[in-house]
């Protein structure tokens, strides 16, 4: 949770207390007014931190530092689950999987912040993890890799904000985690246009077939209402422009990492790297409609840093 803001519970209590002390002064008991008084709209934390120009590891460190540092998200003794995109056995040259260097950097930062355990998890085969280099990167730092390919690793949770999903089976490790970090790669996708952070969440869910059968774009947006990562680290060091999601296809060296906490904002900004209007990507628009986050890039507080 973002600590610079008043906690929600505290907020209600304060609102109620003030309301009592100012009986008859109904405006004062309105939490939105209190909020406005305590925190001007223009201030507040960044929505997105973008680090550009360096190597994958350097960009990752800079983006997270700019967003407030890993300590803003990971506390001593936390269990952290990291979700890369290991959906193919391809190495990072193809840009269809999260760059292992980005994964390794984030895991190392979490451990340095005092995490008691870091799990690198996805509903993909162990063979993919082994071949695309993520297994080796994770092992070097001491993270545990979970290829969540059996149903007993999942637990059903309701999706009460969803429009097509009413429940999903989510990897238990994610539900048990103190901190969940989503680490997608930015790439083209033949069905959804692009696969970014929200689409990457399909890899913490058991029944992907259901998504495809019931309107993939809406199901992706629905899933984002049920699982909110504490942090999103988008690997846009090299992006796959065509023939996604598996590649090989045309790629471009964007040399960027985008960090944020709002999945819609991260995805909307990343979509612009592909020359796409975020509104035209179904799941971004639907997630915005469901109140998952902000898709209007011009409304976002963005800080861009160069890494040399």
């Amino acid at each position, binding site marked *: 949770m973002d600590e610079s803001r008043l906690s929600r519970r505290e*907020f209600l209590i304060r609102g109620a207390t003030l309301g009592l002390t100012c009986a008859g002064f109904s405006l004062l008991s309105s939490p939105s007014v209190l909020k406005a008084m305590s925190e001007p709209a223009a201030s507040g934390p960044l929505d997105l931190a973008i680090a550009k120009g360096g190597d994958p590891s350097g960009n990752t460190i800079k983006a997270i530092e700019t967003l407030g540092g890993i300590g803003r998200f990971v506390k001593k003794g936390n269990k952290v689950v990291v979700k890369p995109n290991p959906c193919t056995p391809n190495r990072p040259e193809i840009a269809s999987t999260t760059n292992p260097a980005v994964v390794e950097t984030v895991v190392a930062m979490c451990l340095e912040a005092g995490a008691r355990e870091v799990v690198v998890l996805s509903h993909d085969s162990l063979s993919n993890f082994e071949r695309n280099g993520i297994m080796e990167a994770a092992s070097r730092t001491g993270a545990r890799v979970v290829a969540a390919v059996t149903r007993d690793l999942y637990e059903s949770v309701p999706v*009460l904000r969803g429009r097509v999903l009413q429940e999903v089976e989510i990897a238990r490790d994610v539900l048990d985690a103190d901190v969940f970090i989503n680490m997608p790669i930015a790439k083209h996708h033949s069905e959804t246009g692009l696969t970014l952070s929200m689409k990457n969440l399909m890899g913490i869910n058991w029944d992907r077939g259901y998504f495809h059968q019931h309107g993939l774009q809406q199901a992706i947006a629905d899933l984002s209402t049920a699982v*909110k990562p504490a942090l999103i680290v988008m690997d846009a060091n090299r992006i796959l422009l065509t023939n996604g999601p598996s590649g090989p296809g045309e790629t471009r060296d964007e040399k960027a990492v985008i960090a944020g906490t709002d999945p819609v904002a991260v995805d909307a900004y990343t979509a612009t790297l592909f020359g796409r209007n975020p509104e035209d990507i179904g799941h971004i628009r*639907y997630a915005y409609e469901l109140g998952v986050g902000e898709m209007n890039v011009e409304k976002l507080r963005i800080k861009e840093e160069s890494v040399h």
Partner: protein
Amino acid sequence: MRKDAMVRATTAATFLVLTLLWVHVCRAGDTDMFDLGNEFLSKGEYAEAVKAYETFVKENPEHRLAAAAQWTIANIYLTSEEDYERAVALFQSIVSAYPNTEWEVFGSYRLSQCYEHQENWEKAAGVYRITIERLSLSADPAAQERVRGLRRRLITCYQNMGDHESLIRTYHEIVEADPRAPSAALDQFALAQAYLGADVPDRAVDNFILVVERYPSSGYAARVHSEYAEMIASQREYDWAPFSLYQSGLRSAEIGQYEEALTKFDEVIELQPNTGMARAAVFQRHCVEYRKTGDAAALREILASMGEEYPYGLGGVDVGRLNYFLGMIIDAQRELQSNPEDVGGSYLRMGIGYHQTGAHFCGIDSLKKGITRAPQTPNLYNILGYCYIGVQRYDEAISTFQKLIDVAPEDPNSYDSMAEGYYSRGDTAMAIQFYQQSLAVDSTFTNPYYMLGRIYYELGDKERAMEHLARYVELDPSSYQAETARGLLNELNPPLPADSPETQGVRQ
């Protein structure tokens, strides 16, 4: 002095009120209460969530997230509180408040769901129909997908209402909307059964015959042949020869008698030129060529080029599944090219792909190569054994499964596979022994319970059959085999009729 102080205080208070009002207006779009609702929701504190969302909607009725907040409240009543009356009222208000939006479409769907929970099938069907009509006008492929889903719900409603006419009309709509759909054979079959239910046997026969002629590769065609041939014969003369030849061709292809298979498919094409069955036979010829050569890429190209020409989905072949496994083979072949030192993983994936697409000989070849490189990989032996079963080389299957047991003696699946090898060879006693051994290794491993239940059922040992099938259903209630297990259990121990003395006794 006192008066001045009062004036100053009044002015200050007025200023404060105006400032607060201004702030309030400026912040009308604030989403804090919405966020708070989300936070309560994520903690499962639904009553608090409802309060927060309601406050948000009250304070921000025009906010773009007001619909999302109302939607979530309605869903809480529907799913968590099971208060269908309130949910109905809320979904109705969403549907009327947000016309021509996604909220209207999804709201209608949920509204029908509430009616279904209330077993008000007529109202549910009414709303489904209206939604289908609206969505049908949309060019959006996702909308068409939703129409398919809604039609299936309509079927459930009409079945519960006993409305045969509407049921038949809806099945017709489903079949005509996408005769290539993976479920098309099932839907055509269900349509025929619906006609039977409505006591219109001649139309039932028409549709049963369409299942056979359009989808001869599907299991439903085989079911028509085995379960309804007599009924069809009572209505009209029907020549089963082409279908029998087609089925025989499929069997020959499955067990590796490729030349015989090709001859049979050629005969079908000659007997039934320009029909669905002939087109299906042409595709099966390509499949046989693929099984001979293992050229997955070539078959995939044929799939891509022929798919559109075939109005009935290549005769009932599950095209999506076939494509998936062909893709697996192609990917594994690519991986092997880029990494010739592979230690067996690519061969395993190729083996699985070949096994699942019926190219068992190619599978055997790949898996043997894999075993040479990685002789300690259990799955290579497991799939190899199943490939041998596929081509009816049971002794080789059994000796392969013995190697699997040697490599993975702690794995209950090793004994389960061996049992299947014996069962396929017809050696029931050895099959029982190995299924029991599998359970001795892991008493929660489910498949042996199902298989032992079936074997005891076949042997007429009712008690043991029921014991094992019941345990299977208990352990794996949602698997596809659980339905069959429940069917067998019902057959072995039918539920008592409502007016039987035993039932009366239980009631008291």
